[in-house]
Structures are given as structure tokens and as C-alpha cells.
């Protein structure tokens, strides 16, 4: 009897582990449509018939020109807007359930830090909302700041930081609750080229360490190739997925890869996808 119980428990542990590896960060989107109604009453199709599987723990970019609905898709996953039709599953739950279970982290184009809070207090914010005890909150926030390399800036205020540093704080804040899924909406597009490339490598390091799913919205082709396992190419009028491309560049990626032929081939392939539209 006892042996069976132990075996059950082991099975449970294996199942939980399996779930954590394969389900927690999985995103499935089926037959998704999003139609907006403008103030004049006109209907605008933002997304039409989107089907997408994002595997747990993968790095996926949504790439396309403005108006292709990439941000809309991200906002649907984040439960910030509700789709007109279709089904969305986030970690085996509805987007609302996933959000309420604090499975999601979000990083916007601007860092949108809370200006009246120190850097450390900004990272603590989502933990305060979870009612985590003060000591634990502090430890976790300090750990996150160390991870993004801003430990020495913990007691500074946002206005004292550069744009790149602010965005790092924003990433630390999103990851503080240890979400299974990190959603990023053009997070580096307001930064200069040098800062951006540095943050690419830092983000990949953080991703490797934390094993979460990242959905990364961008309009920068080379950025999407460098970072992703999978690039979802989207096109506008109406917004739709026009191609899905697997990127099999070796991991870990490094700056030298930006010079390889393979890398250029991927970029060229995506370019041709856009030309075909």
C-alpha cells in the first residue's frame, strides 16, 4: 500500500513537472477574430482567422508593420481586450484566469515606471499587490535587480536612470512575480542601437535562467531573428498571420551570429515573405 502511495506521489510529481514544462507557458490560439467598431460605427478588422501555437518555454516574435494587429494579439493574450470570436488558451486557462493567477508579465515600449517609487519599490509593486510579506518582497526584488544588473541603483528614482536602465527595471518588475509568460510590446524600439543589442543578450540570458515563454512584439526583422525560436510574420489589412518561420540558429546566441550567412538568410526569407504579400 505504502509503495503504491509513494509511486502515486512520484507520478504526481512527474505529472506536475510535465505540466510545468509543457503546459504552464503554452499559448494556443484558434480561429481568432478581432473586429473593432470605430466611433462612426465603421467596422475595422484588426485580426482575422489567427491560429497559433506557442510552446511552453519558447521565444516567439510577432513581427510585422504597423496595423498588422501584432499588438492587438498580444493584448488579447494579456486579457487587456476581449476577442470578437475564437478561443485563446494561456497555460491551459482562459486569459482572464491566467491573469488572475498572475501567470503573466508585461513590458511595454516605454518603461512606465511609477515615478514616485524608488527602483526597488517599483519592482516590489506587483509583489505588494500579491500581499507578499515585506521581507520576502524585498529579497525577491533585490534578486530581480541583480539579475538585470541594477543592484546599485535600487534606491534611485526612475528619473535618475537612462532609458535603457528604466527598461531593465520594467523587465525586473514584470519577472518579479515569476510569471510563466512574459509579454513584450516593442520593448526596445525606443532605445538606441547599442543599448538595444546589449539588452538583447541580457534578455536571452534572463530567459535561459527563468525558462519562461516570451512573446515579443516587434517591427524589427533582425531583432526578431536574433532573439526567437519562432517568428510569426503578420501582415495588415486585414491583420493576419502570413507565415511562421522557425529559427534554428544555435543557442546561446551571440553578437558574432549577426554576421553569419545563416542569419542573413533568415532575414532575406522574412523580407521575401513581406514582398509576396
Amino acid at each position, binding site marked *: 500500500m505504502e509503495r503504491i502511495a509513494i509511486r502515486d506521489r512520484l507520478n504526481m510529481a512527474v505529472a506536475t513537472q510535465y505540466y510545468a514544462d509543457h503546459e504552464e507557458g503554452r499559448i494556443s490560439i484558434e480561429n481568432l477574430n478581432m473586429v473593432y467598431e470605430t466611433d462612426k460605427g465603421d467596422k475595422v478588422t484588426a485580426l482575422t482567422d489567427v491560429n497559433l501555437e506557442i510552446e511552453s518555454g519558447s521565444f516567439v516574435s510577432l513581427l510585422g508593420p504597423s496595423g498588422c494587429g501584432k499588438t492587438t494579439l498580444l493584448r488579447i493574450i494579456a486579457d487587456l481586450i476581449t476577442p470578437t470570436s475564437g478561443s485563446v488558451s494561456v497555460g491551459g486557462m482562459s486569459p482572464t484566469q491566467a491573469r488572475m493567477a*498572475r501567470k503573466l508579465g508585461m513590458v511595454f515600449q516605454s518603461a512606465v515606471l*511609477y515615478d514616485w517609487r524608488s527602483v526597488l519599490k517599483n519592482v516590489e509593486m506587483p509583489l505588494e499587490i500579491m500581499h507578499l510579506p515585506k521581507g520576502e518582497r524585498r529579497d525577491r526584488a533585490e534578486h530581480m535587480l541583480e539579475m538585470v544588473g541594477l543592484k546599485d541603483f535600487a534606491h534611485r528614482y526612475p528619473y535618475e536612470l537612462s532609458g535603457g536602465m528604466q527598461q531593465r527595471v520594467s523587465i525586473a518588475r514584470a519577472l518579479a512575480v515569476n510569471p510563466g509568460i512574459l509579454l513584450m510590446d516593442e520593448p526596445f524600439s525606443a532605445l538606441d542601437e547599442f543599448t538595444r543589442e546589449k539588452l538583447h543578450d541580457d534578455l536571452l540570458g534572463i530567459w535561459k535562467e527563468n525558462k519562461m515563454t516570451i512573446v515579443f512584439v516587434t517591427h524589427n526583422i533582425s531583432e526578431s531573428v536574433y532573439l526567437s525560436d519562432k517568428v510569426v510574420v503578420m501582415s495588415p489589412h486585414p491583420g493576419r498571420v502570413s507565415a511562421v518561420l522557425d529559427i534554428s540558429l544555435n543557442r546561446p546566441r551571440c553578437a558574432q551570429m549577426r554576421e553569419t550567412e545563416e542569419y542573413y538568410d533568415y532575414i532575406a526569407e522574412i523580407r521575401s515573405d513581406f514582398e509576396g504579400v
Partner: protein
Amino acid sequence: MRGSHTAQEKEQKTSREFIPPRWLVTIVWLIGFFAVWEIIAAAVQASGGSNTVFPHLYDMIYWCFSTDTVQTATQSYSLCGATIWSYLWDTLSVAILGFLIGFALGIVFALLMSLFLPVQKVGYPLLLVSQMIPMLGLAPIFLSIFPELFTSKMFMAAYMSFFPIAANTFAGFKAVDRERKELLKISAANTYQVYTKLMFPAALPSLFVGLKLAAPSAFCAVIFTELLRTQGGLGYGIFASQYASRWDLCWGYIFMAILAGVLIFYLVELVRHFVIRWKSTD
């Protein structure tokens, strides 16, 4: 390259103007004011006008600390230097109390407008209309509604501070960045948390704009109400000294009112300085 750099620096140097320190500006301003005042006072008195219409400043300062009483022909108003301080306190204490009531009501009203759309749709136009009612018409009404002069004064102050505080706090709530709110939504924050952790702190700079408008106008409202009925306060002092044709005393009360109003304004500014220690990154 180097040549152009130094040329630029030179240009900067020549175009750089002298920026005097603040204390110097204040001193020059005060001396200038005293000089102009004294010249006018001397001119008015030399031209044979009543020597109290435009008194010398030193006479007024002397009077503020004297204990001479003033009798008028019809009534024995006890106007003297000693009363100016107690009158100041009469006005100030009511104004502060009324201001605090207006502050509390203003915040609550802004919060309700922000929380409930129907309250906003009905309340905001009402708020604007309420601001159009002239103080001159309202003060007598308040005086007849409330039997106690103290209460009328207090509610006049509350009424005058209510609008700027409510309107500016509400504007502050409305101006909160959408993405900042969305971040809290993603963290599954409840409404209470949204307001304590985001809306109120974010609206603070705007709230202080309201407070800086409200504080002096609460003070003015009290003085104005005091002008209409005689029972202590700076407004009463102004009224009574005019009635007694003691323009020097009247100026004293007016100056005291100005001084207190300015001090109140800077007091709010001082509080703001200590509360808002950050800068916006937007």
C-alpha cells in the same frame, strides 16, 4: 574641430547673462516696494490729503504693535494694534477649518466622479456651474442659512476651496497613463489597490495645483464674509476702520491679509516640496 569648439564656448560665455540669486531678488524687490510706497505716501500727505489715507509704512508697523484703542463717533469699535493679531487668528482658523472641509469633500467628489461614470456625467457640469455663482451673491445666502457667523464663514471657505481641489484632483486621475493602469490589471490588483498605489500618487502634482488655488481663495472668502457682518476677523477690521475713517488701520488690516494669503500659499508649496520628491519620466 577644436577651433569651432572654443568659438562656440566663447559665444556661450558672451551670451550668458547674469542670473541673480533669489534672496537678492527678494531684497531688491522689498526695497523697491518700500521706496515707491514711501514716495507716494510723502507726496499724498504733502498735497494736503488726510494723513491716514496713505500712511507711512513705519506708522503702520508701529500701529500693529501699539495698544491704542480707536473710538468712532457712532460705535465703540475697539480697534487697536493688539486686535490685529487676534483678528488674524479669527480669520485664519476659520479659513483653515473650511479649507480642510473643502479639501475632504473635493477629494471624495473627485473620487466618486472617477469611480462612477454617471456621477461624472451629472457632477462635472454641476461643478462648473457652482463655480459661476458669484461670491458676492452667495455670502449673504450662507449668512442667512447658518445662524452662527462662524459656520457661515467656514462653509464659505469650504465652498471656495471645493471646486479647485475637486476639479484638479479629477483631472489628475484622468491624466493617469493607460499603460500604468494596465500593468496593475495584469498584476490582478483590485480597485482599492489601483487607487492607493497608482491613482492618488499619480494625481498628487495635479492635486497640489488645486490646493495652491484653493488655500488663498478660502482665506479671501472668509474675509469677504466678515465684511458683511461685524463680529471679529480681518474683514471686520477692514470694515470697521473704514467706517471710522481710519485708513491707516484699514491699510494695516489689508497688509495683514495679503501677508497671510502669501504665507498660506507658500505653506502649501512647502508641503508640496516635501511630499513630491520625484520627477516625471514621461
